[in-house]
């Protein structure tokens, strides 16, 4: 089903009648014109720039340009893999990626299910607004807040001191980095993540609830047997989209929470690339790392898409 929908929107003719592309275009030309800006956008801003990835295989110099720079084959990729701390940044990226998918991703789903059960509209709106707001703060601000909260004289240490515990500078403790990473992302992003799910929930046919209520289903049973199964396709889609950027954790968040004392658990590809690539203007190397991350992302998306299609009729992105 999804297949047919997507294809119609894109370019291929509906599978039933074997009409040629040209006659199809003639017949449905307004739709083709409608899709044109999107196609131009993707070509101009996504596909053509992708050609720039070739600098990953060059010793790119700004002054020589694409054409004049020397080709070096896989040298930049080799440099990445032989980097002494490669294992460390790779593990850190994987662990944080895993935290993101396993611990952070389900929170908006749970949150939206809970929000949906709030029957007082005013209360619901207030809660929604309250959980959305942090999303609009930048990580620079949130990072500053986190540092202040965990600093000497911050909320965290005031509470510790109140209970007679010593001041603890959590931001320079290795063991605190991951919990802080997880909690701060949930605080900032989870509220916003509920938007899509709440939309999916509001699209559920109310008669389903009515009939199940007549059959004596409890509130919890309705949530479990109606709401949850019906938002699964939305969950799967979002999951697949996020798995594609499994290794791209969002530079801003980690960078703004990182200190040299937490490098051992928090130094990831993005921060490494920033430090040795962007700052030092080593563009080829940076691109090579980006390409490496994307390739792994692509493999993950393809694998999980296949799995999703296997276990759910409507699952999968394509």
């Amino acid at each position: 089903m999804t297949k047919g929908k997507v294809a119609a929107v894109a370019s291929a003719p509906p599978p039933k009648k074997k009409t040629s592309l040209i006659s199809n275009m003639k017949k449905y030309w307004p739709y083709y014109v409608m899709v044109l800006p999107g196609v131009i956008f993707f070509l101009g801003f996504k596909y053509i720039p992708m050609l720039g990835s070739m600098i990953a295989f060059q010793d790119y110099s700004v002054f020589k340009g694409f054409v004049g720079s020397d080709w070096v084959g896989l040298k930049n990729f080799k440099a990445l893999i032989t980097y002494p701390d490669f294992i460390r940044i790779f593990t850190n990226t994987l662990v944080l990626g895993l935290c993101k998918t396993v611990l952070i991703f389900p929170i908006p789903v749970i949150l939206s299910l809970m929000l949906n059960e709030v029957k007082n509209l005013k209360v619901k709106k207030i809660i929604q607004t309250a959980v959305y707001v942090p999303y609009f703060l930048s990580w620079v601000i949130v990072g500053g807040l986190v540092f202040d909260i965990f600093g000497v004289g911050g909320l965290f240490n005031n509470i510790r001191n109140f209970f007679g515990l010593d001041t603890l500078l959590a931001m320079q403790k290795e063991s605190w980095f991951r919990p802080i990473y997880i909690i701060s992302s949930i605080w900032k992003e989870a509220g916003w993540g509920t938007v899509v799910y709440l939309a999916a929930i509001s699209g559920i046919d109310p008669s389903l609830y009515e009939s199940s209520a007549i059959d004596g289903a409890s509130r919890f049973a309705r949530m479990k047997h109606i709401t949850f199964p019906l938002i699964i396709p939305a969950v799967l889609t979002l999951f697949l989209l996020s798995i594609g950027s499994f290794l791209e954790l969002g530079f801003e968040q980690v960078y703004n929470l990182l200190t040299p004392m937490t490098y051992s658990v928090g130094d990831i590809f993005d921060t490494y690339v920033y430090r040795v690539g962007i700052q030092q203007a080593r563009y080829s190397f940076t691109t090579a790392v980006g390409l490496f991350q994307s390739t792994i992302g692509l493999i993950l998306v393809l694998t999980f898409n296949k799995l999703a299609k296997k276990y759910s009729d409507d699952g999968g992105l394509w």
Partner: protein
Amino acid sequence: MKRNKLIALVLVGVMTLSALTGCSKGTGKETSEPGSTGKTEESGAEAEKTVDLEMWYINEGFLEVKKGGALYNFYKDLTGVGIVSPYVEWNGGTTYQEQLNLKIVSGEMPDIFLPVNGMEVDLVKNGALLDLTDLLPEKAPHLWESIPKEAWDVIRSYDPSGKGRIYMIPNVVDYPVSGGIIRQDWLDKLGLPMPKTQEEFVNVLRAFKTQDPNGNGQADEIPTGGRQEARWMDHLFSMYGIAMWEGNPQWDIYDGELTYSAVTKNMKDALQFMSELYKEGLMDQETLLNDKAGWEGKIASNQVGVYYHWAQTTNQKAESIYNATGAKPNLVVMPPISAPGYEGFYTEQKSKGIQWVVKNTDDQEKIDACMKVLDAYGNKDLWQKFFLGVEGMHSEMVDGKLRRLPDDKKTMENLLLQPGTDISTVESVTQLLENIRTDDTSWSVDMSVANLAKMPEYGKLIAGNGIPSSVYEGHPDIMNRTLYVEYASRIITGEYSIDKFDEFVEKWNASGGEEVTKAAREWYAKTQQ
């Protein structure tokens, strides 16, 4: 059906229109930005035949230098060239470097700029910088004379082609700039003498912590400390004879050979000492989390006993303490202390780095303009004027003499050319300080002048003076001192035991330190000839 088609058409129309206008808005903005400087060049050239140059320099929050503004006109009078300088956030050099790279990539390199983090080597290699070797003596003789020959020789050694061409203007200084600065008024209050040994120093810190020298009834004193990445606490490293520049380990002779000071036994002992201070609470617990604003805020709020900074700006620090708390501090440079078995000193280098580079161009008019600016910059007769800046903005007339006003970022445009501090001797800087003196500031100026006068005897010129950043080539993590900062921070905070230091040295050597050391020693051997 027809109606649907019509609606579809309208929608398509709206979408394409919005897409087009969206695009054109974007491009319009792009062309207007570089246009603003480009346009001024044209109109300037038409009107008075002055050439405008774009200059980039550190700007920590002052106003940009705009075409036609007060500072623009001031510079035009002094140099005969119009200078504009956009506001670029400095952020410890990080944001500046990113923005500068971006400009270079897009082919809009500023005409004259301060390079950071060794970027100049790559630029020279790519022919992006102007060869100044013959131009300087001919067209900027004042600058050529103002900077000593030895400094030019160091710059010649930076030429990656080995031909000894000059591509950079160095920053020159003939005394150690920074030292540990102690609250003499606190010492006096507690009846303690200036510490001379490490033991005395630690006892002073203990007294600062427990005896409430700032007299506010709270134990809020921070005996000493520094900033994140183990920066700005060199006074603690210096006790162990470690060559250190604002937290950046330097090269000096250890065990008879040029060595990176971070991987020496001296460093190991220093870190152990610091971890003990940290554990005892004698160092700011937030030392390794403090950013610039955080640490300077603590100093200004009358809490810090000993900190590391420039001797010649103690007056500014004193004023900020006075303005924030009403306390009139007496800040004095602490003579270097030697830890048992070591010879302590404050690191001296003849150059704080590269001050300016000039964009390579064939445009003779631009070259001449750049040389005019550099000549005026090197002209000692103008140094005072450059320092005082615009009357009514940076300085005001007091008793018939121009006096520099205290910094006010809201009203002052960013002074780009500061030859008096860039090419400095104790005398030249003292003279500049005298330009600040008013009845209100006399007490703090005296302090700076006295501190400055003592600096030469506290310093030691390190062997790695003027080492080019090219020795780090291919090893960005070593140049960034990533590994060092990580281990040093964790050892100081007690996360790692001192035994981990040996692991650090091993890792450092394995991750490129060995090659860097080799390159550094080769450079040193060459300079010794």
